[in-house]
């Protein structure tokens, strides 16, 4: 498998970014859910630190992903898709990118408005991008929650579509985002 995307499949860089962001988003959802339910404690604070740090990591990775995508032509969708599916897929992917950007950005705004100091992975101080304000904090938390709800729905659709392509339509849409374990690269 080459590093770059080809007309047949996604390259190693794209696959690596895709699957690491996917895993990190799942971790963020799990930690985010858990930390909200916990009573105030040191463990809760530690979970918030992990959630915020991983969120900033995802922000960096998705920016790299967008840069890489701009310099690579994605493999085209199968030609035999019904007419409405290709535009829908394109729209869904644009919305996914926007929401994956909006999640860490609204989190960053939320953290700024809360006035709680934070260092990414206990090292890099995160500068505030909004004034400290309880009112703004409330608005940003609603924004964070709303983008989460939209992202969760889109992710379910994204996963369902990938499985449908693989198991019902029998095309390579899912496989071309997977490394070919046990196969020798034919590139």
């Amino acid at each position, binding site marked *: 498998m080459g590093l770059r995307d080809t007309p047949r499949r996604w390259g190693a860089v794209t696959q690596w970014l895709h699957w690491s962001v996917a895993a990190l988003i799942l971790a963020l959802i799990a930690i985010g859910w858990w930390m909200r339910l916990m009573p*105030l*404690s*040191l463990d809760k*604070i*530690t979970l918030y*630190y992990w959630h915020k740090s991983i969120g900033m990591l995802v922000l960096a990775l998705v920016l790299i992903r967008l840069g890489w995508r701009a310099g690579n032509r994605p493999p085209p969708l199968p030609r035999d898709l019904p007419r409405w599916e290709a535009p829908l897929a394109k729209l869904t992917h644009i919305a996914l990118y926007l929401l994956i950007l909006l999640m860490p950005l609204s989190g960053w705004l939320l953290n700024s408005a*809360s*006035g*709680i*100091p*934070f*260092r990414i992975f*206990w090292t890099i*101080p995160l500068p505030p991008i909004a004034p*400290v304000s*309880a009112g703004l*904090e409330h608005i940003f938390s609603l924004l964070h929650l709303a983008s989460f709800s939209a992202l969760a729905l889109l992710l379910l659709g994204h996963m369902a579509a990938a499985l449908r392509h693989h198991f019902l339509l029998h095309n390579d849409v899912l496989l071309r985002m997977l490394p070919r374990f046990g196969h020798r690269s034919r590139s």
Partner: protein
Amino acid sequence: MKIFVALLLAFSLPAWAAPSNWAAGPDAGNITFTAYWNGTPVTGHFPKFQLTARLDPAHPAGGSITLDIATSEIKTQSADITAAIRGDAWFDVKSYPKASFVSESIVKETGGLYQLRGELRIKGHEKTVVFPLRITCDDGTLELTGKLTLDRTDFAIGSGQWSGGDVIAHKVNLAFRFVLAPAG
């Protein structure tokens, strides 16, 4: 000449020689603190306090300074942190809405500096603290400034699971400034 000096001293006595009564309310100063959260400073202040003093800066030996602080009004840079530290494990403001400082001795050092010693009472815990105090006389007022570092565990501020110093440091830096006006 001797008489002149004596007269001058006599006339200036009412202003400075005897300990005078002074006071400073919340509009005439501030008490700020910096705590450390994962190594990052978190600042806050006590917006409500009342200071009373009986003090002659030239002869501080018989003087006294008393400060009452409404810990129930404690504020930090973050509303979330403020809400948390008013809780039971921290300042427990429901049971202990006030902290106080009562001086035991004021010793003059050089250049407007004094050594202040007294009992600090927070959350029902008392501790003797000694720290440098600067007194500046200006236009009928006294300005008191200084800073000191406290260990929050001496006062059970952050008890139970919070008593470790890894995430939230034990050391808390305090700084204050009061402008005292003559009182009664």
